[in-house]
């Protein structure tokens, strides 16, 4: 990947607030034409990283290059941002809001109008354009804010939980728009807790936990690093237990088995095949999901923290 295609470069960035170290030595890059997943539990430091990248706050140490260098006023017009904190001007109409925010991003009045019309039509909000923001539903406001964040067709888009509050139809509309922007060459950073969306949309991810990057790279490569300890088995005959299986659960006419730590799936299969009371028809290792990886990597700590808080 050439340097020209690197739209965001975060190098060893740390940020402290007094005694609290929110981010510790995180590094990653986001390229043109990709959707990059920024993952992590609540309080992991995602928002701090995003705000640092956008020059809303200054990192304590480390280097940030955005669109090829330091942030400038000119570059602000090439960046789109949909923050986690949702809000628009309640007393303004949807149309006026988009024109205002579009113009703040550097669009001319004419282009702002054209783009507003285009995206309002596309996201099925055209009829609501004269309504005040406060009169829009949550989903409509979410779409309106999304339009405000991308209507200037930026090179780098940073979106925080873009699908929260959206029904499946609108989720699909937003996805299509994001794909189109990616295909146009935009680099997109998507911060979300919805692992299904990340698996579907992102080519690379960074998982941060307690301010530190714990997983970074291509999604397929990361997935291959984690072997599944779960198998699904279809067979004739019934069993109560299998050596090496810690959890045995009948499911859909077969069995869902969770293997013990260090147990090889091949060994379990051998034991089943050698059992004269059963005939194995299908034996399949379940591919590990990003959700499972997330839970494996940060789940224990999150649970421990929750327990500590409860105590």
């Amino acid at each position, binding site marked *: 990947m050439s340097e020209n295609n690197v739209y965001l470069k975060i190098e060893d960035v740390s940020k402290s*607030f007094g005694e609290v170290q*929110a981010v510790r030595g995180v590094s990653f890059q986001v390229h043109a034409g990709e959707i990059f997943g920024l993952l992590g539990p609540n*309080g992991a430091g995602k928002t*701090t990283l995003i705000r640092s990248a956008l020059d809303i706050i200054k990192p304590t140490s480390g280097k940030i290059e955005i669109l090829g260098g330091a942030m400038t006023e000119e570059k602000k017009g090439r960046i789109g941002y*949909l923050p986690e904190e949702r809000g628009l*001007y309640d007393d303004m109409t949807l149309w006026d809001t988009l024109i205002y*925010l579009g113009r703040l991003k550097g669009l001319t009045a004419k282009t702002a109008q054209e783009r507003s019309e285009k995206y309002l039509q596309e996201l099925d909000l055209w009829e609501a354009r004269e309504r005040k923001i406060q009169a829009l539903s949550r989903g409509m406001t979410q779409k309106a804010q999304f339009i405000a964040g991308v209507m200037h067709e930026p090179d780098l888009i940073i979106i925080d939980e873009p699908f929260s509050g959206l029904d499946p139809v609108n989720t699909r509309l937003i996805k299509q728009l994001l794909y189109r922007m990616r295909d146009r060459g935009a680099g997109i950073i998507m911060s979300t807790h919805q692992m299904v969306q990340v698996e579907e949309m992102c080519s690379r991810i960074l998982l941060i936990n307690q301010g530190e990057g714990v997983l970074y790279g291509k999604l397929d490569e990361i997935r291959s690093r984690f072997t599944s300890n779960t198998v699904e088995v279809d067979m004739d005959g019934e069993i109560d237990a299998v050596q090496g299986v810690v959890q045995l659960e009948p499911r859909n006419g077969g069995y869902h088995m969770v293997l013990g730590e260090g147990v090889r799936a091949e060994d379990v299969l051998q034991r089943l095949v050698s059992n004269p009371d059963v005939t194995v028809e299908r034996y399949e290792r379940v591919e590990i999901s990003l959700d499972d990886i997330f839970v494996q990597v940060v789940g224990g700590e999150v649970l421990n923290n929750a327990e500590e808080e409860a105590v």
Partner: protein
Amino acid sequence: MNKLWLVAKNTYLQRIRSSTFLLLTFGIPLIMIVAGAIPILTELRAEIPAVGYVDQTGKMGIVERIEFEDEVLSLKPYPDGEAGLAGLENGEIGGLLILPADYFEGGSPQYQAGKEPSEKLTEAMEEAIRTGLLSGAPAWQIERLEDPANFTYAAQSTGKQVSEGPAVIIRVAIPVFFAMVFVLTIFTGANQMGSVMVQEKDQRAMEMVITSISPRELVAGKVMGMTLLSMTQVAVWILGAGTAVFLFFREDLIGHALSVPWNALLWAGLLCVPGYFFFALVGAGLGVIAGDVTQARQLAGMLGFLGMGPLYFMGIIVNAVDGPLAVGLTLFPFTAPTIGLFRMALTEVPTWQLLVSVLILVGSLLLSIWLVARVFRATMLLYGQKLKPAEIMQAISQSGLSAAAEGKEN
């Protein structure tokens, strides 16, 4: 700059349509005009009755008719009060004027009637007394003695000439008018800045907006928008006041050589414009540190107190217009516009004092821009939290969000 104007325009357009603005802008002058018009309309509708008079001085000639402002006052002399009262009771006359025997020693004429005389009737009766006492004098003499002298004062030190009458009123009224307008705009415009900033934060659009525009431009745009709003308000008020003056006092002004008090206007501009921006920025700063609109309004009340403050000292100022308190308050940025202008109405304020006052005001303005932008940048994403003094100092000494804000947001 372009984005600054976009913010200013948006702030202006959002506010100008609000019912509060429309009520304040058009309601206040309307109430003043109506309040001012009621006595004038009452006067216009007042009829002039026939008036009898008793001359107990024996010096008045017979006066039977006075022409006054296109109307006629009919007069009927009576030999004594008893006859006059009888005439009043039997309806021959609507009122009875008695010129007492000690009139020339300062005795007051009496007027007896069913109701108080209108201003027009009072003036007509004065004219009747004058005409009666100057019986035999030519009409031009009587007319000239209606207003025998219109003095022009020449200041010994400067040689500057000031005419009595409307010119003096204008000389005094212009600075006072601008001082009053300034105080009003502090209340209606600059004082609202805190609420504007709180609302900007409350709408939660801040994070999107500041990735398009710098915090300094955002604050400056908001202040500019509110200033334009205040200027619109002032323009409406001045237009209203000018129209009212023209409608109600045009006859008083005709015939007098009036000159525009350029000096007063110049200093009014030099003091009021940075003064307004200064108040607006301090208002914005209070909004930044306030947690919600209610707190912003409470803090704005304190700011309004500073704006109104000079009025509390007016008694002392009038008595010692060049005293140390007056000079001190002329130089203090919060009171400089009001006290400076009030003093200009009462005395010749030394130019150095006004110049130093403007310089201090501009310096305070620049300092407040720096401070407010810094606190705003550091705390713009703190929603619904009132800043403690320690946090304000921290925000000024370093940029970046406070730990509390980040902990909340991540």
